[in-house]
């Protein structure tokens, strides 16, 4: 079981991911709607894992990844994105995200990626 922080500007997206994660036995300990909140929540909870949307208002996902990793180099961040944003996915990976999940996602895929990251 991992303690997960979900970062996404869409409440519906957060909810659906939360359900999937809970279904897989993980605990969602925090949510953030933009990059700045994400940093604050990370600092507060030190989650095992962060799921990060890329396109968000204020501070986008990539900035958030950079900011979190600057301070917490061990942070495990997974990018959640659509294939249409694959260039951004690549940027996120280069910025230090551990892996990515392409929307629309299945619980299987989410589980596979999370386990891969947690095993590391």
């Amino acid at each position, binding site marked *: 079981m991992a303690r997960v922080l979900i970062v996404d500007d869409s409440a519906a997206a957060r909810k659906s991911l939360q359900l999937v994660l809970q279904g897989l036995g993980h605990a969602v300990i925090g949510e953030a709607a933009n990059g700045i909140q994400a940093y604050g929540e990370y600092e507060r909870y030190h989650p095992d894992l962060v799921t990060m949307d890329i396109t968000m208002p204020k501070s986008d996902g990539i900035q958030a990844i950079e900011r979190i990793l600057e301070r917490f180099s061990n942070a495990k961040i997974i990018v959640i994105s659509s294939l249409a944003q*694959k*260039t951004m*996915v*690549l940027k996120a*990976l280069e910025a230090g995200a551990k*892996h*990515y999940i*392409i929307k629309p996602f299945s619980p299987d895929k989410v589980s596979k990626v999370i386990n891969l990251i947690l095993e590391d």
Partner: protein
Amino acid sequence: MKKSNFVLSAVCILLLILVSIQVLPYPLFSFHQSTSTEPIQGWEYQWGQETLSKNMPWQKWDFQQGHLERNPRYKYIWLKAELPQEGYQNPVIYFYGILADSLHVYLDKELIYQSQETDTILGNQVIRKIIMPLPNEWQGKTIFLRLEATSNQYIGIYGTVLLGPHKNILEQIFKHEFDHILLGSFFLTLASIMWAVSIFVRDKQQKKALFALIFFTICTGGWNIAEYDNVDLLFFYSPLWPYLDGISVLMTPIAGFYFFEQVFGSGPGKIIRRIWQFHLLYVIPYLVLVTLNNTIFNENVYTFLTTYYSWTYIKLLFILYSLILVLVVAGLVVKRDNLEIKIFAAGITFLALSIVCVDLDLANWGIFGLIVSLILILAHRFVENHDRLAAWSKNLEQTVAARTASLRNLLNNAGQGFLSFGEDLLVNEEYSEECLRIFGQDIEKKPILDLLFPEDEEEKNFLENVFRKIIHDREGSLREKYLPLLPNELKLKGQDIQIQYKIVNDIFMLIITDVTDKRFLERQVEKERNLLKMVVRCMLNRRDFHEYVNDYRNFYSSRLQQILAGECPLPELVNEIFRLVHTFKGSFSQLEMVKVVQHLHNLETDLADWQKNLRNIDLSSLKSYFQKLPWEEWLEEDLRILQSILGQDFFKRPEGIYIEKTKLLEIEEKILSSLQPPESEHLLKEIRKLSLKPFRELLDAYPEYIERLGEKLNKSIKPLQIQGGNTLVNPDKYLNFTKSLVNVFRNIVDHGLESSPERLERNKPEYGNIECRIQVQDEKLYLTIKDDGRGIKQEIVSLIFKAGFSTVDGVREISGRGMGLAAVKIELERIGGSVEVSTQEGIGTEFCFILPILE
């Protein structure tokens, strides 16, 4: 063993025995006299002290013996000889072979030479060779040598003392056994050449054999040089000399046998290997002794060393018998007509002949011959191997070419494009023919990125980034992560191409499949499916359909104008239109009217943009925008399709539905042919509902029929009332059965119901009564037909449904053939129904048909 081989071996053995007899004394160093120099002869000696005693008698010195035991009473031995009376201008004296700790030379009483400490060699035993000039007027004088023996066990001179001009002496010394050094250097050169050749030898066994031969040659060269008699004249004495000399001599046969083992095998019981191993053992004590002698010089060690080393007799016998064994093995092991063994034998023969028949001193040249023969053997091996390898390689090339051709054929006809590229992202020259078709050009050395995305720089950059990440990831841990980011399918020159990626040893391999036709078919199917969905939806919800269409038309023709003409502020106005458009979109999408929905969706997008940029819009531009929109055209696209499938009439009667049966069947067929279950099943079910009928409608014809039949048979019958029967069923399934019911009604009218007078007679109402009731119970249809006629006799009730049964004697137009009710029974059974008959004589009969509900 072949006879010729046997003879050959026997001759060799014989020669070897002869050689060994000659070789045993092995006096290799013998001076060749020259007239330009002369040995000083007539040497005499006496034991003595530091100065010469005149009282001691002189005795003749024996050069054959060459030494005396040290005399504990005397420290020195004096030797003298008379020099010739005349001859040579400025001659020199050459001393060689003096056993002593030190040497003093006097000409008469004049000291002309005194040895230095460094002049003694071989563990301070021997004075090295000396060339000493004589002073003027030497003629006729006596030369005295004073040899000191303090540590030596032996003392004396075993060599020669030569007199002559310096030039001649030197010439003679270097000529002496000069072949040793010549051959020695030659052998070493030969060995280094072979060493160079060995680089190109790949075969392990041959390499070993070649190294054995090189070693053999080096050893031969080594002892030739080491045994060169004048080494100590040329170089200062080094403790390495005994090693070089002894080891090279002792190792030579070992190298030879090892060579034999590698070339011809080790023979029965690995005897050859045992031989060289045994020889190797012989070397070890020698090494120990030399080392001991060099480190802790001690007379005993030295004696033992020299004895051991000069134990030539045993050594040579040893070599001889080893050679005999080798030859026997060669005869046994080697196959008939083997060129190599013949060369080997020839080499040995040459060696033997060179010693026996020509000159013992030429033994070295014999060895040289042997080496040449061994080289020839190896060369023969190489050539043979090379030929074999060449044949193999040719064979292999052909096989590879054939395989490549068949593989190429396979790949070219696989219907897929195969190409690969490396770090440079340029397509490698090997690619399958399908690629030519897909890319429409020769793709060799073309950048893969330009081929896949000729016009999309962003995709190119992205792809390059990912390709490079994957290629540089030698461990392969990132591959799994990055591969899914690569495009699986893309549009290229109007084709849909599918790409699979494989990575083999830093080479990207792409398998490209043209899926244009597949995707086209899929799109067609999708289109067809959407179309059918729309047709079925509109049919089933025809009221909604008409309502939505009318509303929509009303909206764009009048409502919209009203809204635009109203006093509403611009934002609310746009919102209002947006809301209405959105509603229409939702309504039409319920009916799966995809075309109009798509257009409305695009309109919505425009409106959404406008909502964001209201500042830049004014009412007039809004009005003209909406006026230009082809509202009706959007709708028409869907309507045309509906009309072509459902017929013109579908639009005419909004209140009901009218579809020709053939149209309906066509739709059913389309659904079946273009859709897969369960979707097709679902749609068919919906559609078939349209053709269901209330069950009672199947009996619609009978009231009139009974009326007519009654008139014809002159029976008074109340009009038939049908009760119930609104259950929807598939009429086709029941049609044959309901048609057959005519027999039942006919029988009732003809036989069951009495005529009016008869009825009145029996106190029954004048008019006969037939009741028909339809009920549903337990998912079954109960059709009851009841009359109040005369009833059926109990004994024949069970027979009435049997073929050929008739209660009347004559066949009439109406009934009496006895086939009617049997037909009913057959049709009933066909649809899985059953019948119960209850009758009471004089009161009436009731038929109850129990039917399944068929949709």
